[in-house]
């Protein structure tokens, strides 16, 4: 078993691992000849399946992989990997390889930096004795080389251990829509979540009594005991509209985006006849102002916030709504928009009321 490669786009790699690590620490990394797959299946919450072409993060010419099964399966702490990748910023070369030390498998990251970031010129300016002046000058003129080695412990997974792992199967989506900018979506979602959680924390009996018309006080109490985190309602229709709602006993706030794109599905994959049978086409037929044309999911605000941390990669995101059941996000990294190339797929379950 062999794996060795030079890294490229380490910023992208690092942002990718950082986004993944917000969902879970343990990551299944599968190295194949053409693609690298990252999968995180946490005990609770959203799971993510990522498929990255080798040349997105690795230098294809130096990419070497040897394995009996044509793939190497690794279990790695992805936040540790993220931290280690920080050493590669500004480096002149970075290499990742599979190695072993004391029978323990490791992913070794070797980085060569030929200069430090700013501040290096100030080295030795203070405290240097007059006699060392020449040395100081020499030091400045020189290119400084520093080798950094990060040895990340990993677990090698046998092919049989990962055979049973499959992406979830989902029904065809009712609505598919391109999400607005994730930065905006995240800040609004986070604000909603915070509002709702402070609201439920500060709630006092006296205030409860005053919200007469709202009869859902009892329902709110049970929701609190079951799962204290407030749920965001996210819904969309096939007419380019997305709606984000938070509702508690005291407040109900909604943001609506309009003019978004409902992307066409790839006609190569389905026939015209099938196409018209799709639930999303049915939904398209429903009028813009008809509530039945909306597909809705209820999601955990904190979990959603973690999912949206993928926004740091500034991707395009297609959200597929399966009404009252699940939300599937297809996250395409920039530069790979027109293929199934770099794609992260998030599977988010909808909570029931």
């Amino acid at each position, binding site marked *: 078993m062999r794996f060795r490669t030079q890294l490229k786009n380490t910023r992208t790699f690092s942002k990718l691992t950082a986004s993944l690590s917000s969902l879970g*620490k*343990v990551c299944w990394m599968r190295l194949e000849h053409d693609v690298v797959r990252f999968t995180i299946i946490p005990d609770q919450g959203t799971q993510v399946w990522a498929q990255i072409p080798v040349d997105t993060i690795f230098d294809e010419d130096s990419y070497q992989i040897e394995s009996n099964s044509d793939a190497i399966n690794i*279990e*790695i*702490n992805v936040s*540790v990997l993220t*931290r*280690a990748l*920080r*050493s590669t910023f500004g480096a002149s070369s970075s290499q990742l390889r599979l190695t072993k*030390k*004391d029978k*323990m498998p490791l992913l070794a990251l070797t980085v060569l930096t030929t200069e*430090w*970031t700013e*501040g*290096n010129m*100030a*080295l*030795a300016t*203070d*405290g*240097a004795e007059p006699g*060392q002046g020449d*040395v100081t000058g*020499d*030091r400045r003129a*020189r290119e*400084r*080389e*520093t*080798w*950094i*080695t*990060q*040895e*990340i*412990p*990993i*677990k090698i997974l046998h092919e049989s251990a990962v055979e049973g792992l499959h992406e979830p199967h989902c029904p065809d989506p009712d609505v598919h829509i391109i999400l607005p900018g994730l930065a905006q979506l995240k800040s609004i979602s986070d604000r909603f979540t915070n509002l709702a959680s402070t609201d439920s924390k500060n709630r006092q009996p006296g205030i409860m009594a005053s919200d007469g018309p709202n009869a859902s006080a009892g329902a709110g109490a049970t929701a609190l005991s079951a799962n204290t985190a407030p749920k965001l309602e996210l819904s969309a229709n096939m007419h380019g509209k997305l709606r984000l709602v938070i509702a508690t006993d005291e407040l109900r706030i909604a943001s609506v985006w309009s003019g978004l794109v409902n992307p066409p599905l790839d006609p190569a994959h389905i026939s015209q006849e099938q196409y018209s049978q799709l639930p999303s086409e049915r939904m398209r037929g429903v009028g813009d102002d008809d509530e039945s044309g909306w597909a809705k999911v209820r999601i955990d605000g904190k979990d959603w916030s973690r999912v949206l941390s993928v926004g740091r990669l500034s991707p395009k995101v297609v959200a597929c709504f399966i009404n009252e059941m699940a939300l599937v996000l297809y996250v395409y990294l920039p530069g790979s928009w027109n293929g199934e190339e770099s794609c992260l797929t998030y599977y988010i379950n909808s909570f029931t009321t």
Partner: protein
Amino acid sequence: MSSLTLSLAPPALVRLHDVLICLSKFSDTVAIEAEHDLLRLSALNSTKTAFASFVCEREPFFEAYSFNVRRDIRSSSSSTAGDRFYCQILLKALLSVFRGRVDRNKDTAVERCDMELHEDPQETECRLTVKMICGLGVIKSYKLTYEPASIQHAVFDRSRATNQWIADPRFLRQIIDHFSLSAEQLDMYSDSGKAVFTSFTTKIMEGKEVLKYPVHTSVAADKRDFEEILIEDNMHIAINLKDFKAVVAHAETANATVTARYTQPCKPLQLAYDFEGVNAEFTIMTRGEVEGETAPASSRVGMPQLSQRQTPAPISVSRINTPRGVTPSTQMPPPPPRSRPIRPLNGSSTQEHLAPTAASDRPSASSVSMDYDSLFVPADDDRQWDEMEEQEEPQDILGWDASGRQVCDSSGSVQRLAADKIQDNSEPTLQEAEPDFPKMADMRRRPPKDEMGVPPTQRMSQVRGLGLFD
């Protein structure tokens, strides 16, 4: 009765705050020692493996400084010895007084800070008073309680240090930045023009939890990146990364170049720098493998993980009494007679019966691979109990200087336990330097050597205690 009054200008106030923050990374309390022309702030960590000391000189650090001692007939104050005063204060309390006091462009920004302390046995309430003189005539006063303390200093003999490097703290921070946040130890060595810093964690892991194994990070920097570096090749020396980070962080705020001095593993290392009338010294115990026949240095080359092996998992307190026979060195000479607690200074355990340690009986210290436990009492040497030879100080004394003086003088108040001694076989005279007890008369509870024929067994804490309740 002693009194201390001092004034600080705003810049010094900021410096003092920085110093207190740095000290708080070592201990919960700061020991304050006032002398005629200096104020020393120090902290010793709980495991006694790191000692941080800041000496603030009267000039130019303070705007005004005055310290007076009037000795009573009845020297009731245990914390006044000679012409000095010492006490300790909770750092949390002190930090809250100084937090965020300066650099506010407000009318009521601090213009001067006055501190005052009068200790008088006649008084029922003795407090440290801190007054912040602010703009618009605002004066904020704080009264802090303090407690008497037995001040302990780690002793480090710079003249004996054989390895030394000087580096810019920003350069050191750039190295630290690569380390994982959870890393605990830092191993340093040099190899053909490179200085290699490796962070690691000594942790016994369950076989299953491979992913929780600590990351090893090593950074190999060109020696020319140091202002000066003169260290033995391939000698691994390891210290607590947390201590190192604390020092570098503070040196960076003080903009002072750090000098490291050390001799060999399991001997103390000192990091030092000066800034604006403050002299900072950090004495840190090191771990590693003492060079010797068991592990030739050359075998280490290219084995970055070695540091993990050569430093067995941290010995927990409960394991401390393990006899030396279980230490990992396979070729270790017979253990010295009797087991003994490695942390005798803390303790409540019984007196030890140490057999006389004639030079011929001694295990060759150079062949011993040991973990350390305490800065003051390295685990590898029974000779730590010997009284220090005054004239001929052996290399690298690691011991008590309860008086607060760096030099052991003839004053009766000076008591010193030689915690560590001769390791250097190249100095034959050191081996012959049998322990002597010149000041035995002063150590009241210690039986004279002739009577017992054993080295001192009295714990330092108990000796201090005597003074306290006299």
